[in-house]
């Protein structure tokens, strides 16, 4: 078998392992990929990344401290989790069929931007107070529980909330804050229209 054909098989295998549904979280761990296709798995990941780029997808490598840079050590890469995400963000209309309502997305924008401004962690009551500014009371508690379950948030033992693993993978925090700060206030919007 030619080297090219071998690489093509490995690329398909890596894609399969990453996309296969898992009980706990999507994606795959570095050591899992290493066990499946061998030591050179990271170079195969890079080949797969090039192919996915053509389809508007990207591989995100997340370690314990957040997204890993390509300069990460072998140990860090083995311990990290590999996800395939959309390269470009969706519009509100495109995002709606995913099961996220306007209120859900607004709630996540509020929670995540607030937590980011508080260095990633804040008392749950403070976050609830912020959400109640925009959402009905019953929906606040319901949403918070749902976001924790889905991995967008983490409820800590000291009754604080911190940014969950899914938010770290799916959300571009720099864009989130930039868009929030660039949002015109309500009065300005109405006068413009």
């Amino acid at each position, binding site marked *: 078998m030619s080297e090219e054909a071998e690489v093509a098989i490995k690329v398909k295998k890596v894609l399969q392992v990453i*996309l296969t549904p898992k009980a706990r979280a999507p994606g795959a761990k570095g050591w899992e990929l290493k066990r499946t296709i061998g030591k050179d798995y990271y170079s195969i990941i890079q080949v797969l990344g090039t192919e996915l780029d053509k389809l508007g997808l990207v591989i995100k490598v997340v370690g314990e401290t957040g997204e890993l840079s390509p300069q990460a050590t072998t140990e860090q890469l083995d311990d990290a989790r590999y996800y395939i*995400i959309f390269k470009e963000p969706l519009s509100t209309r495109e995002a709606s069929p995913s099961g996220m309502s306007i209120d859900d997305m607004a709630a996540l924008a509020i929670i995540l*931007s607030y937590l*980011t401004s508080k260095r990633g962690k804040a008392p749950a009551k403070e976050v609830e107070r912020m959400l109640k500014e925009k959402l009905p009371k019953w929906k606040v508690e319901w949403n918070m529980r749902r976001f924790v379950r889905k991995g967008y948030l983490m409820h800590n033992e000291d009754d604080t909330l911190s940014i969950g693993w899914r938010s770290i993978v799916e959300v571009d925090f720099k864009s989130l*804050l930039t868009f929030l700060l660039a949002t015109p206030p309500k009065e300005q919007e109405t006068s413009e229209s």
Partner: protein
Amino acid sequence: MPSDEKIEKVLRIVDALRTVIGSSSDPFNVDVKAQIEALRKLLPEWKELGEILMDVEALNLLSRVVELQEKWVRYQASSLYVDPLLVELKIIASTPEKLAGVFAGSWHPILKVEQVSQSELMRAINYWNTLLPWGERFREEFGQERGLATLDTMNLVEMKILTEEELNRKIEEVYRELASMFELQEKVDYWKFISGKNLNETVARAVILSHVISSGLASLEIKPLEENIFIVKHTVDKYPKSMAIAISSPRGEKER
């Protein structure tokens, strides 16, 4: 400075430091230099092991505050730093639609396949084929299911748990007790009357009383609004009627 006051001073420092470490407040609110100076002045005074350990704890917390201060500086210098107050104001001033747009604009969902694989499907089929019908599944563990049955006094007598003489003696005892109370008052509180030392005794008295009432020696008066039940000498109702009163676990005076 008295010893107690010195200890209290260190404890206050420890408490204040723990609060800063546990919250997301600005670690620069702690004047590290002044706290170290305070601890240094107190250090020669400590003699007991507990006091020295307290001083070590305070110093350890101070070092963690310094670590937090470093992280804080790094964070403020990063591109992600935004004043929390500004974020709060922006959130308040925006509509839910705009906020949803903010999230969607920075959201890159994870791609995953939600499909059952062939091996999973085979496992499911094998499991289904070996699964016993619902009716047979728990038979071994719980035995044959039986319907609810009633044990009346006659059954208890037949089973030799209760003798007829004993039952009659108990009915007489309860009736005498009730009759003596009727001499003093027109009606007797049902729950107070049946109340025994424990749940078994309460239930036993309630059963015996039901025999007294069934024999026409007394009657019940129920006040549904006040949730009261009284035992009275004579019934107001022309026709006898049956009623069920549930008694479960002791709850204060009323045992239901």
